């Protein structure tokens, strides 16, 4: 025989497809072996595809479609752990609650939140932001006052812009004092859509 005959043996036996199936089984095995540090999943929503990332502590990141996926994952690998895999089962609760929110069947979230990507003044800012209930809005100035730094309006804006867990930490509910909606990490259209969904604007 010619040993070169071996070359295409694996391909003829369906290696490509079998490797896909075998790789698809890895996330559940990783969970069973407690080796998965960050579970991610995509979900569709009225404001476009969302990416959610969940650690053992809770929801750590929500990404919008306009964010660079590779960059977002590389950032999670660097800041949390490179043990990142897609897992439907490990992101079940988060995906269900977000679905319910967009179906208007839920006004606040019960899933635990992992705040490890939130640092400095953003911690206080986003704690205050989490207290703004569905259907209400607040302003940058009000948040600044609540964290005891009434002049730090710009810093509040930056902190909100850095929110790693939008929607669930509802930074979209913070608007300008004049009623102007101002910016949003997911783009102003998404902010408007979320405020419309909540009945805050018509």
């Amino acid at each position, binding site marked *: 025989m010619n040993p070169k005959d071996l070359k295409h043996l*694996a391909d003829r036996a369906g290696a490509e497809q079998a490797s896909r199936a*075998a*790789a698809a089984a890895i996330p559940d095995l990783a969970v069973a072996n407690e080796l998965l540090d960050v579970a991610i999943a995509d979900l569709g929503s009225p404001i476009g595809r969302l990416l959610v990332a969940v650690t053992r502590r809770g929801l750590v990141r929500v990404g919008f479609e306009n964010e660079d996926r590779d960059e977002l994952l590389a950032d999670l690998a660097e800041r949390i752990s490179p043990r990142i895999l897609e897992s439907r089962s490990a992101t079940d609760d988060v995906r269900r609650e977000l679905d319910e929110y967009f179906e208007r069947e839920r006004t606040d979230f019960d899933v635990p939140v992992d705040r490890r990507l939130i640092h400095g003044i953003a911690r206080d800012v986003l704690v205050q932001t989490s207290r703004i209930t569905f259907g209400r809005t607040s302003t940058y100035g009000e948040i600044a006052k609540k964290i005891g730094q009434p002049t730090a309006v710009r810093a509040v804006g930056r902190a909100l812009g850095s929110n790693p867990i939008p929607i669930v930490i509802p930074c979209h509910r913070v608007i300008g004092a004049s009623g102007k909606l101002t910016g949003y990490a997911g783009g102003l259209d998404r902010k408007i859509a979320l405020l419309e969904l909540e009945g805050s604007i018509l």
Partner: protein
Amino acid sequence: MVVVSRTPVPPFLEFLEANRAPVYRLLLVAVGPLEADDCFQETFIAALRAYPRLDNGERLDRWILRIASRKAIDHHRGRGRRPAPVAEVPDRATPATDPTPDDELWGAVGSLPPRQRVAVVHRHVFDLSYADIAELMGTSQETARANVSQGVKKLREMM
């Protein structure tokens, strides 16, 4: 002072997607269709276990093939203690059809000793150099060369 630039370790899902096909091809021929899935899972779970300890994302393709080679050889060793698998190769007594050339090839490659089998796959499926095979299997180049040539010799005798 030497500045060492560091390649970040990629998210595991990217690493898995980039390496699943070559690893599966290696294992499929190195341990056979019935055992390939198990070996594949052992390989990537071992990699996942060690993953946070990596400090450099370079040459991870080599790293995973090294783990897979070890798993393939260990797998055969483990199997020696268990009853031999009934049909890694389709049973030639029962099928109504004549064995295909692939069946004969599977039979021949399946009868090689584990180290020779893995070395032959590296050489003749992946076209690796003896230096690469030595590195992946943790042997000297002479041993790598001997494993390949003895394996090929046996294959030629069988077919």
